[in-house]
């Protein structure tokens, strides 16, 4: 696997350069190479014409490339002033000169037009101010290039505005700024130039004003148009007349999703489409009762539910395959059999264990049904390929005969054949009356699998598409629309 393949990237002084791309596009890798976390296998980095080779983040900082991360990496227990100067405090005969530390901190913050009491502990301020302090720290070392890695993820609108003002001021001073974000509006609000990465390659670059939103989205998630673009749509399910299995009415959860309004009937596949960070996984978590609602109404089988929890969801016949199967799904050391019977067993309670023979039968049946490639059901599941692990995870839930299965990125990181098989399986089971929520970054998969798609943008549901409206073009256009 090549994380980054021959990517050229140039930041001009006085430019805000947006680095765009979905998960796994290579953004973080590129930043990590620039800031000395990883070495590049090939290629070079030049700063103001001089070839450099940073060996660590602190080395890169010394050379003039500073990074401000999403999570503020400062010491919350120390004062703001000290955080800005830490490690390079001005010293006199009596040690650190605190008055000068305060003065320097005030100066650096003044450049960002932030005026606060720098004597107070950093941790007593909001994340926005902490981020400003992190930027001020970068300014204090005379950074030439400032990398902002998703700095706005935990800021509210006013705070974002304040950050942008600071960025504009630095830009005017001639600093080169690399800006990484998932929020399209922000990219257009602040950046001059953008580079779009996809699967480790640069797919487009240009002035922000020349790249339309639709083009940007297309470059980020759209695939090259291929032959299976036009595929037959299964007829609308007749099951739609029965009361919906799950209805969500204007669900809100701060920092996760707003205004989520969807319903899923029996035998229906609801797709959630949107860019990374648009609130897809968060929505699924709400459906499964992993997180609490701030407001909104959730109905299951036409009845309103309160304090919806995961155990309620399991009792109602829901199943959930989370996004990261390695950390929150599969138990790598356990065998294929044990992984498959896990949920069924926990449902029966640990006191009434399923007889070993029956476990083996069930596992064997699922292995055959889902075509899981394993030499033996006693093999630890970690030795299976990604696609087969994913199928084992599906098998685990299918054994419980769920009515609704929530699949968050079930096709990520698995080979093409396995992707096909999983999508075919969803189609089969749907025909038998099972319902799904299907989340995928691959639009083509969403288009192919779903007959109803909720489009999410910047943690807000913006539109529901059904039937023939569901095309890659239409979804991308909806994602790219200017929000008001």
């Amino acid at each position, binding site marked *: 696997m090549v994380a980054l393949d021959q990517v050229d990237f140039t930041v001009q002084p006085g430019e805000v350069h947006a680095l765009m791309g979905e998960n796994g596009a290579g953004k973080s890798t590129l930043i990590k190479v620039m800031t000395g976390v990883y070495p590049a296998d090939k290629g070079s980095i030049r700063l103001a014409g001089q070839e450099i080779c940073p060996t660590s983040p602190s080395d890169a900082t010394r050379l003039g490339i500073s990074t401000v991360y999403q999570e503020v990496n*400062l*010491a*919350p*227990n120390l004062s703001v002033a000290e955080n800005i100067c830490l*490690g390079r405090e001005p010293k006199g005969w*009596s*040690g*650190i000169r605190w008055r000068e530390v305060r003065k320097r901190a005030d100066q650096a913050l003044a450049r960002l037009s932030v005026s606060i009491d720098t004597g107070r502990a950093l941790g007593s301020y909001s994340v926005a101010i902490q981020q400003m302090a992190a930027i001020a720290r970068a300014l204090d070392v005379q950074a030439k290039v400032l990398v902002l890695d998703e700095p706005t993820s935990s800021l509210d609108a006013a705070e974002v505005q304040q950050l942008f003002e600071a960025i504009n001021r630095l830009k005017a001073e001639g600093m080169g700024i690399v800006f990484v974000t998932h929020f399209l509006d922000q990219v257009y609000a602040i950046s001059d130039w953008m580079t779009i990465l996809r699967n480790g390659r640069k797919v487009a670059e240009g002035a922000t004003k020349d790249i339309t939103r639709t083009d940007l989205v297309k470059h980020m998630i759209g695939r090259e148009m291929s032959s299976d673009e036009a595929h037959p749509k299964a007829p609308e399910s007749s099951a739609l007349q029965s009361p919906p299995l799950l209805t969500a009415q204007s669900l809100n959860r701060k920092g996760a999703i707003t205004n989520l309004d969807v319903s899923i009937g029996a035998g229906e596949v609801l797709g959630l489409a949107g860019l990374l960070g648009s609130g897809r996984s968060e929505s699924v978590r709400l459906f499964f009762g992993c997180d609490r609602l701030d407001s909104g109404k959730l109905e299951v089988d036409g009845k309103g539910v309160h304090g919806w929890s995961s155990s309620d969801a399991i009792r109602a016949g829901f199943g959930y395959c989370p996004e990261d199967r390695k950390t929150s799904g599969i138990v790598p050391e356990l065998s294929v059999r044990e992984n498959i019977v896990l949920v069924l067993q926990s449902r029966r309670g640990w006191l009434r264990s399923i007889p070993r023979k029956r476990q083996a039968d069930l596992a064997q049946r699922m292995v055959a049904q889902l075509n899981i490639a394993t030499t033996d059901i006693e093999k630890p599941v970690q030795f299976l390929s990604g696609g087969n692990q994913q199928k084992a995870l599906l098998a685990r839930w299918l054994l419980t005969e769920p009515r609704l299965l929530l699949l968050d990125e079930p096709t990520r990181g698995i080979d093409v054949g396995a992707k096909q098989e999983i999508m075919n399986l969803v189609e089969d089971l749907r025909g038998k009356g099972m319902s799904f929520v299907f989340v995928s970054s691959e639009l083509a998969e969403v288009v192919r699998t779903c007959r109803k798609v909720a489009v999410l943008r910047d943690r807000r549901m913006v539109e529901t598409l059904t039937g023939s409206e569901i095309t890659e073009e239409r979804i991308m256009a909806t994602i790219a629309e200017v929000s008001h």
Partner: protein
Amino acid sequence: MKRLITRERLPILATSIVCLGLYLLSGFNFEGFFSLRVAFNFLTDNAFLGIIAVGLTFVILTGGIDLSVGAMVGLSGILVAFLVDSKHWNPIAAMAIALGCGAVLGLMHGYLIAKFELAPFLVTLAGLFLCRGLALWISKASIQIKDPLMTDMASFHVGLPGGASLSLSSILFIAVLLIAIYASRQTTFGRAVFAIGGGKQSAVLMGLRVPQTLILVYMLSGVCSALGGIVFAIYTSSGNAIGGTGMELDAIAAVVVGGTLLSGGYGSILGTFLGVLILAIIQTAITFQGTLSSWWTKIAIGTLLLIFMLMQRGIVKATERTTA
């Protein structure tokens, strides 16, 4: 306007109030408690504990712990006594060797903790056994120190008005205290200690020399505990391999009562000094009282420790609420 009472200062304020309150309470109850002589005896009688607690404060500020300090007291005491009395070494040379031992042990602790990311609790627990074992290997029996220079040191006093006097131990304690306060507030090393306690990963990303700082911190604690052992040996005019047993716990109590958070990042040397004073006042008050057994000291310290922990937890919770 600057506020005198801030959330960061709350623990040290609480410690000061408890310290003053206990002092006044004891003073009004017991005849002669308010004399300068008693006050300076607080220093002399607890110099070894104070010196150890100061070194330990640095360790705890980084979020670590050093369990070996009590055992180091035993080792350095018996080592000095053995070299001076049985081998007829010059006392100064013997003390230098003891301090060297403390430094080397601290270096080993720091190296293992910084480079291999081993748990400080376990590394220094191993150090505790090592020191205690070495001390008993040198001599199981306690050794009386009869060297004239050492006895001179034990009786050395700087007379002060009002019948009080400053012993060599208390002078050493005050010196260590002042140096530590300076180092913790005015040097890059001291500030790095606080930054590491606030978040090790962040400290690395801020370009601080985290491993070097950690090694230095454990060396400091080793040297301080060795010095504490020497002072203890001078104070008792003998070396004893099992001297200082459990003293690491008294030192931790003093540091925590002094307002230093066991998880690191918050605290001060001055607080530790007050913590040691609080322990000293309780001890002296119980001696003055006369009828209570000395175990009441432990009960009082335990209760105080519990109250302080609850208070610190409350402050942390309150801080989290305001930033959330």
